[in-house]
């Protein structure tokens, strides 16, 4: 009998693991999820609400794919794992035996104990069920006169864009005094503040949620702001203050957990034959300058690829390469390669350039002494991943990067190029220094 690999979670990490295990072996594979029968792309949820796509378009594989590749799908909720008998127990009362278990359960939206956080009309924006709840309480601006979003991160701004597409007025509560400035340098964050306001979003900076008030049916009707005690009437409240690993069901198992499931560099937990990957895994020690818990799409995919190697007999360390990521803020695309922190750290300097139209800018971070290029943020200008990846690995100098910036340009044909302007700005800055 072939070994039975059971994967909890049919997100990008679990599915990638399954696909690569199938490619390399004939093991029996079962994927369990309580969210949806088939894998879909979480990152595309917003486009379903906005009417760009139907839900089925968010599924990267056609439904026949799973059978053809002999990957069994189970629509169940796991509420207990017994590592002694190697059994997972389902809420439905059934259970399943495994030889090897991969935990890929992803995240859930953070809630910080706000009064009223469990009312009707209060939702996160993570699972498909959140989207359904949004459709129920905010289908249009007749039934939802105003929405309040709490938490200014990547998901918060996506939610704002979603509601905006249906002409629902939005009040956006952000704890920081400028949008996402715990991550972005001030020039960029500042540009985004303006861009958000240009879309008629009522952006409130430097404020916290105090409580959510209910109407007589137990549905949200207003929020109160901590700092001013202002009451803002609303029909729905979106909680988007970050996510944390979705692992409550493991509390009584012997698997070691902290915020997430603790894993070593081989993505192994403290229990033999149990692995954790994706959003729910927490490294004992952060890798490079990454966070111990990485909740992004491509790290989930990479962990899936890595663990598949290990499970198929080629024990492999998870060694992510140079950091990169991307996002979109309404109409402004953002890409980042390497590390650019909100404020230059000890020994680092930032070079910032912004276009006059206030929708494009870049920030390059480099080492003040050695002049080594450390990372770039680019807004409104598409750049090439492979070029920056190479330059980071080769530890190129900032001058080289500025001079060769056009090699990294990834904009569509016939677009205006700004490399010359950027070079001029850089030289001017050098002279001033």
């Amino acid at each position, binding site marked *: 009998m072939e070994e039975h690999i059971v994967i909890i979670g049919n997100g990008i990490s679990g599915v990638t693991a399954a696909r690569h295990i199938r490619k390399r072996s004939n093991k029996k594979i079962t994927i369990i999820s309580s969210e949806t029968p088939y894998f879909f792309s979480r990152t595309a949820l917003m486009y379903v609400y906005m009417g760009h796509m139907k839900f089925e378009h968010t599924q*990267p594989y056609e439904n026949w794919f799973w059978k053809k590749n002999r990957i069994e799908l189970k629509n169940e909720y796991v509420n207990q794992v017994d590592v002694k008998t190697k059994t997972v127990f389902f809420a439905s009362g059934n259970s399943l035996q495994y030889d090897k278990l991969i935990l890929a359960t992803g995240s859930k939206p953070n809630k910080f104990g706000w009064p009223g956080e469990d009312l009707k009309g209060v939702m996160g924006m993570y699972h498909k069920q959140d989207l359904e709840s949004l459709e129920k309480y905010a289908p*249009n601006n007749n039934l939802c006169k105003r929405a309040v979003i709490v938490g200014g991160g990547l998901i918060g701004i996506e939610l704002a864009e979603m509601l905006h597409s249906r002409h629902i007025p939005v009040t956006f509560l952000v704890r920081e005094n400028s949008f996402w400035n715990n991550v972005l340098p001030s020039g960029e964050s500042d540009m985004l503040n303006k861009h958000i306001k240009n879309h008629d979003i009522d952006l409130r900076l430097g404020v916290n949620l105090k409580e959510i008030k209910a109407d007589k049916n137990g549905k949200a009707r207003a929020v109160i702001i901590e700092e001013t005690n202002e009451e803002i009437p609303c029909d729905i409240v979106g909680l988007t203050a970050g996510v944390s690993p979705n692992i409550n069901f493991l509390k009584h198992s012997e698997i070691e957990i902290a915020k997430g499931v603790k894993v070593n560099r081989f993505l192994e937990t403290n229990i033999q034959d149990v692995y954790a990957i994706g959003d729910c895994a927490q490294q004992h020690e952060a890798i490079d300058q990454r966070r111990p818990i990485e909740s992004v*799409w*491509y790290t989930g995919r990479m962990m899936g690829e890595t663990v598949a190697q290990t499970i198929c007999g080629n024990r492999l360390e998870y060694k992510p390469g140079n950091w990169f990521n*991307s996002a979109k803020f309404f109409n402004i695309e953002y890409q980042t390669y390497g590390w650019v922190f909100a404020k230059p750290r000890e020994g680092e300097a930032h070079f910032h350039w912004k276009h006059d139209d206030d929708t494009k800018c870049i920030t390059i971070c480099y080492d003040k002494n050695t002049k080594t290029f450390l990372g770039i943020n680019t807004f409104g200008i598409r750049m090439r991943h492979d070029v920056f990846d190479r330059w980071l690995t080769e530890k190129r100098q900032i001058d080289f990067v500025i001079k060769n910036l056009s090699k990294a340009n990834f904009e569509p044909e016939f677009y205006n190029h700004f490399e010359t302007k950027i070079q001029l700005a850089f030289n001017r800055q050098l002279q001033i220094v």
Partner: protein
Amino acid sequence: MKNKINHSMSLAKPDAIGVSNKQKIALSIGIIGLFILILALFNVNFPNKGVFLALSITLISMGIVVYSREAYLTKPEGIKNDGVWFKSISSRGVWGWLLGIILTVFYIVLYFFPAYLGLADNGSDNTGLIGLFDPLSKLLSGKPASQWFVYGTLYTLAILAFGYKFILKYKHNRYQQIRTVSVMFFQLGFAFLIPEFMYVLNSDLPYYDLKSIWPLNYYIFDEWSVKKFLSNGNIGLGFLLFGIISIFVITPILTYKYGKRWYCSWVCGCGGLAETAGDAFRQLSSKKMVAWKIERWLIHLILIFSVVMTTAMVYTYLGNSKNDFWLTRSLFITLFIGFLTFLFAGILFFKKNELGNDTKYGAISFFVIIMLLVFMHLTATTEHVFYIKGSSLRSVYGIYIGSIFSGVIGTGFYPILGNRFWCRFGCPMAAILGLQQRLFSKFRITTNGGQCISCGNCSNSCEMGIDVRHYAQKGENIVRSSCVGCGICAAVCPRGVLKLENSSMKGRINSNEILLGNSVDLMNLVNQNSNK
């Protein structure tokens, strides 16, 4: 939980589909313009046809222009796809089906019952809709209108007005704008005006749209067409030569440099209509694997049909004896088979790897063509090929492929099957260009390392039904014969993952299973395996 959800999960209509008051007025203006055409169709006899035609065209254009300005100029630049899957017309709703039926009926009448449009019997004057267009036709070429003139005018109007809409929709994207100006220019100039003026200069020349190349222009080598060209001295000969050069020289060079997009989404009239008036329906093309399989069979069968049909056409008007004309039937068939063999051997020799599994299908197609031609040569009589009259073969092609497929289904079914149904499943020109794009072209869509988040926006808006995400999420470049290079996948990608490029052939097709940004060991390991 059920996975299948209806097009909007909400009970109430999402507000995204709202139309502003100004847009409602614009719609009404456009509909009044259309109404004039409909009245004419039902034989209302307008006193001053020229004025009413002008009025109708102006109102229709004004309606579209005002509507689009309100839709796009009042909003910040960016992707404008909000609600496309909620709107009935663009998501196969009631309006979509209704429009599909109206268009289909129009095409059937146009191709098969032009008398209902008011086409005159011999000698008498046009009436109805065609009559309404007489003044414009007389102004341009001096002759009364025909159903094709009416169609050509409306077609051009649609490309120009919806082209304007498209340019506003993509006001942030220069590639989209320039390409749209290009299709507008080629439609207005090459397809509409120049042939009319050519007629004024020399009324004996056959209608010739210079940008329409064989096999799309399947009648260029017909006996009457060739005779007319040849009987018109140097100009005629020049045009015929241009036709041949377009096929064998211009097309391969441009496709090598830029991919088939230079034609399909920059020049071609069918493509032009699809990209402008059909833009709202691009998401309707099927991305299923089954659809891709059908596509490959159908389009290549039609290509074979059109090659054999054209050869047979030319064959029938050639003689057997050298004394009449140096190109005899036997010589022609020999030369042609020789040419095909040369082509096929060349492909096999240089491009075996790229062809991969398709080598088998290529070989089968090649032998089918050769066998058909040999069979034809052996069984032909003076008048008959394949035991039927040569001209009937051409009519069959003309009716089923040229009319029903490309017109009735291809355009009539826009709101049901998507805007490039003909281009994808039927067009033999697209098949030839596609073959070349896949094997001998610098064009590809580059994927930006590991940035893809598998969201599916690209696949959703690919009018050719290519599952772009399938490649992008693996970090693979997209090298597909059907890609017309419209660039919309790249435009809608929220992560800047795709770029249309003409670059060196080396490394154009990359299929590494492990993406950039990954553990260096893993990438090396897997890439080693795949090189073995």
